[in-house]
């Protein structure tokens, strides 16, 4: 699987992309593949604040409900409405159209400390 080079990754299998102080957050291909068919996505509303390392929502598949952890902290500016009606998009395009939330990052310096694509690929290789 191709993990985009410009994203950063967490051990809990979220990805984050940073552009002009706005962090776009999603779950990785590996995460969706482990979860199986996703049937429901629970996300915070714009205006809510998320804290780095704390859970901000959950993804429900036919197998399990899994918490999603914020890779960076800040205020939610947008939640992906697409997932409310089409949760299956998260299986189809986890690194693109099925991003979860956008956050005004309160501490963008957290970003470089996360894993890069190569490190994440090694990490999931070791895990599976």
């Amino acid at each position, binding site marked *: 699987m191709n993990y985009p080079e410009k994203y950063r990754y967490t051990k809990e299998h979220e990805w984050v992309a940073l552009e002009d102080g706005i962090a776009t957050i999603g779950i990785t291909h590996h995460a969706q593949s482990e979860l199986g068919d996703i*049937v429901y996505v629970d996300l915070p509303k714009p205006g809510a604040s998320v804290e780095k390392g704390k859970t901000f929502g959950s993804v429900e598949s036919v197998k399990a409900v899994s918490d999603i952890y914020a890779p960076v902290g800040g205020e939610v500016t947008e939640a992906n409405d697409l997932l409310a009606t089409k949760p299956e998009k998260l299986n189809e395009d986890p690194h693109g159209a099925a991003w979860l939330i956008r956050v005004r990052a309160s501490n963008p310096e957290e970003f470089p400390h996360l894993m890069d694509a190569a490190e994440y690929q090694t990490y999931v290789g070791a895990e599976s």
Partner: protein
Amino acid sequence: MIPSKVRRHLVQNEHLIFEQSSPGKKGYQLPALDVPEVDSVAALGAGNVRAAIEDFPEVSEVEVIRHFTRLSTWNYAIDLGMYPLGSCTMKYNPRINEAVARIEGLAWAHPYQPESLSQGAMEVTERLEQALLEITGLDAITLQPAAGAHGELTGILLVRAFLEAQGSPRKRILTPDSAHGTNPATAGIAGYEVRNIRSNDQGMIDLEELARAVDSDVAALMVTNPNTLGVFEENIVKAADILHAKGAMVYMDGANMNALVGIARPGDFGIDVMHLNLHKTFSTPHGGGGPGGGPVAVRKHLEPFLPVPRLRRLNDALTWDYDRPQSIGKVKAFYGNFGVLVRALAYIYAHGGPGLRNATVDAVLNANYLRHRLRPYFDLPYDRPNMHEVVFSDDRQAAKGVRTGDMAKRLIDYGFHPYTVSFPLIVHGALMIEPTETESKRELDQFVEAMIAIASEVDDEPQTVLTAPHMTRTTKVDEVTAARKPIVRWRPA
């Protein structure tokens, strides 16, 4: 191939009862009124009276009987064969329990009867309390909680109340990564943060990681012993010492007590508070959402906080004590699900001490037998003697594209209920198998044959497994569409 345990059999098809309705049909006839008729609208007000119930099925008695009897034949049941889900979900319910629960004075006892007329029923609860205290090795117990997770919440609220009385409820509950999902959920509902403790490579709590995690903010560790891998936490005493040294407590989830009864007592290995699942270990009916029984046993220091009322013996009579200023209050109406308590006591008395111990030994023996017979065919991530259940992984079969859930569905074709799939989470693609004490070697061998046959199908004809079940009245249901676009009630066409 049709396995030896099953054979195709006529299964009656059945419409919903609503679809069988014929307007005006009645299953009864009543004599003419011999009292003056009352106008219900005048008596109750028009807003409280309706002329008809929308879509109410109108059928005869025999149609009702046939409908539900046919539906009942569609079920797999513990009375038909082995449930590899084990005591965790359903073990055999001996009929003596039912006979005792139907004794008139117990079955028809009313919770509002005066105490003087309820002494027998109260003695049943007193004797059950005593038996469960002997089994757990703890000091006091409440029979009030109605289920396991309810017991957990009660137990953690006791921990919280005790710590609050000491000055601070503290902030955090620790759970191992092999924990039942209800443990972190309980901690969250009780107002605590949850921190996960990683298991070591033997599937047990990592003592070093635990020691690092325990500080004066930690209220308790919630632990299941044996844990969800079916492994006894050998270091439980040392783990308890680590918690106690910092003024924290150890909560034990008693879901797996089927492996300990009559052999080891949680009170002897450092547990402060625990729940029991009467509907698991003590063989009361389970499923369909209850009713269950989740008694909570505690060490002495937590006793003042137990729910009201407490059962007391006063001048030779039993009475309910509501004067408990430190109590967390009531957690359930009256004193729990009494019918469940009666069945649990019947089970305990029918076995006696030595019988309960034998049941435990047989449960552990059966699970170890299955581990030994199946280990050539399935990967065993934690390869050590287990207790009452054994956890394999689907790694070998997943390489052929077949996962634990697929093999579980195929098992239905062989005449067995599926085992637990994909739990515990720390085993990738888990197959958790718990036979319980009741299964004979013959039944276990049939199960083993079925599992071996499935393993060889995975090698030779994986499509057969992937598209299973084939012998059932419906094929594999579309779980994904059912979850994404649920239809939760019938409507007329």
